[in-house]
């Protein structure tokens, strides 16, 4: 099979109370002592006006904010831009909240607003709604960021015409520890897509 060259045309990360875009620090918040406030701070910094944001669980907020940072300076995102996300902890952060609500039969209060977030692919649903992406989605769960699989799978999508571009990466949240990295893959750019390069950018 003839393999075209693809590029990492943008990337961003959210870790340790900081937001980075293309390797540069964009936002830092040393004040907030919880994730909810940290996420709200990024939301304000980005000057977003999107009421749906406030209904999201913390995992979706992180993925959503990272996607906003990633595409911030783009005119528009092609509708065929696929989403290929992954993490280690699936939706366990919200799973634990749902479990707490059903743990005691005498005090039983499951809520649809919580339950709907007990699936990790909801992050991609939220990003798709905001950007009107009627595209390929896949959510993988791996022990750690698998740059090889994610880049190969993304290449397949573009190679086979199933996507024009791919937003791929890692959106993990577990017991208040978060680690978010997204990359925009396309046919144009300066950094050629290889598993090593993707892994380097993730580890930056």
């Amino acid at each position: 099979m003839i393999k075209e060259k693809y590029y990492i045309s943008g990337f961003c990360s959210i870790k340790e109370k900081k937001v980075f875009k293309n390797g540069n620090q964009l936002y830092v918040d040393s004040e907030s002592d919880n994730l909810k406030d940290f996420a709200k701070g990024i939301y304000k910094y980005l000057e977003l006006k999107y009421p749906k944001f406030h209904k999201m669980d913390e995992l979706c907020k992180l993925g959503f904010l990272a996607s906003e940072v990633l595409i911030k300076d783009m005119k528009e995102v092609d509708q065929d831009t696929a989403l290929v996300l992954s993490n280690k902890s699936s939706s366990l952060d919200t799973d634990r909240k749902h479990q707490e609500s059903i743990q005691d039969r005498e005090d039983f209060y499951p809520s649809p607003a919580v339950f709907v977030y007990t699936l990790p692919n909801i992050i991609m649903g939220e990003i798709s709604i905001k950007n009107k992406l009627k595209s390929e989605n896949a959510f993988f769960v791996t022990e750690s960021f698998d740059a090889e699989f994610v880049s190969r799978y993304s290449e397949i999508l573009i190679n086979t015409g199933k996507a024009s571009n791919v937003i791929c990466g890692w959106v993990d949240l577990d017991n208040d520890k978060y680690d978010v990295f997204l990359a925009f893959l396309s046919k144009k750019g300066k950094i050629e897509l290889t598993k090593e390069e993707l892994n380097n950018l993730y580890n930056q």
Partner: protein
Amino acid sequence: MKKVYLVADNIISPIGFSTEENIENLRLNQTGIKKVDDDYIWSEPFFGAVVNNDKLSKAWESISSDLGYTKLEKMMLLSVSKMIVENPSLDIVKCGIVVSTTKGNINNLKGGLDKKAYLSSISETIQNYFKLDHTPIVLSNACISGGLALAVGKRMIQSELFEDVVVIGGDLLSEFTLSGFFSFQAVSNEPCKPFCKNRTGISLGEAAASAWLSSKKDTTKKEIIEITGDASANDANHISGPSRTGEGLYISIAKALKEAGLDSTQVDYITAHGTATPFNDEMEAIAFNRAGLQNVPLNSLKGYYGHTLGASALIESIVARHCLINNEVFTSLGFEELGVSQSINVITKNEKKELNRVLKTASGFGGCNVALIIEKVAS
């Protein structure tokens, strides 16, 4: 581009521990859904399809004496083991593996010891059990996981990552998911009735299944079945409700047909998602009409299996393979009278019928949809 064949399979479900037993019970219109009275799952009796624990233990004893596995792990390992026994040429150690599950061992959250609640623990369990060269990749994409996992497997073969991929799907009927669907008021108080006027919601089920995808068609002695098209598309509309226009499903179907080089008149049978919630079934009817598929015979297997989440679309694709091989379709169990606003052709009795091309679809939370075209290869 390499061709990808569906060459072997197994289903572990309430209606059988082999694909043959499952097909036989489908042919008898035997449902796995019954009134379940199990305080571990729910404080009151409810309708669902559960795998009998004693039967599973017995089957498990025939392959292992190690009791350190969860129910879901036993079901998945048993499913793959049976497929290996029936197919000596399957070298599982070298295969790419995709595991499809929505909630995995979510029951383990209950005790607070949640190491096994991490989905990657299932991957580890499977890798260790079969001593695999490659770590299985877990796909967790709501109710389309089983169908999307087949698409992912196909794509892995087409991009020459692997010659062979085994897709393993499974989910349990747990208090965790049941309580969630109850909170949505989406659980039926009788066995579910897909596409029927009298439908009131889903019945949940549990099952595991495995399928062997190969680039080599001579690995099967049976009739050759190929996955010729696959596509997935998001509705970009709502996270917990399907699109009113069936947008993502329509796009998925159109793209899958295009890849297979077919038009809608060439589809012989649709094995739909058909969860029996009011909104889902309505959305599907709209999407099928938009795609020009309103006259194609269609059923939902949820009346037999309940909704088995990460296993459902995989099981339904496996059944589709056997429907193609045997040239038959099964009645859409639970259906009485059409209950969607647009006309569709629901199958109301088992039928022997020449089948060449099947469309499998699924839709799920997060606005996701998938479509697969499964075809008989002309010999």
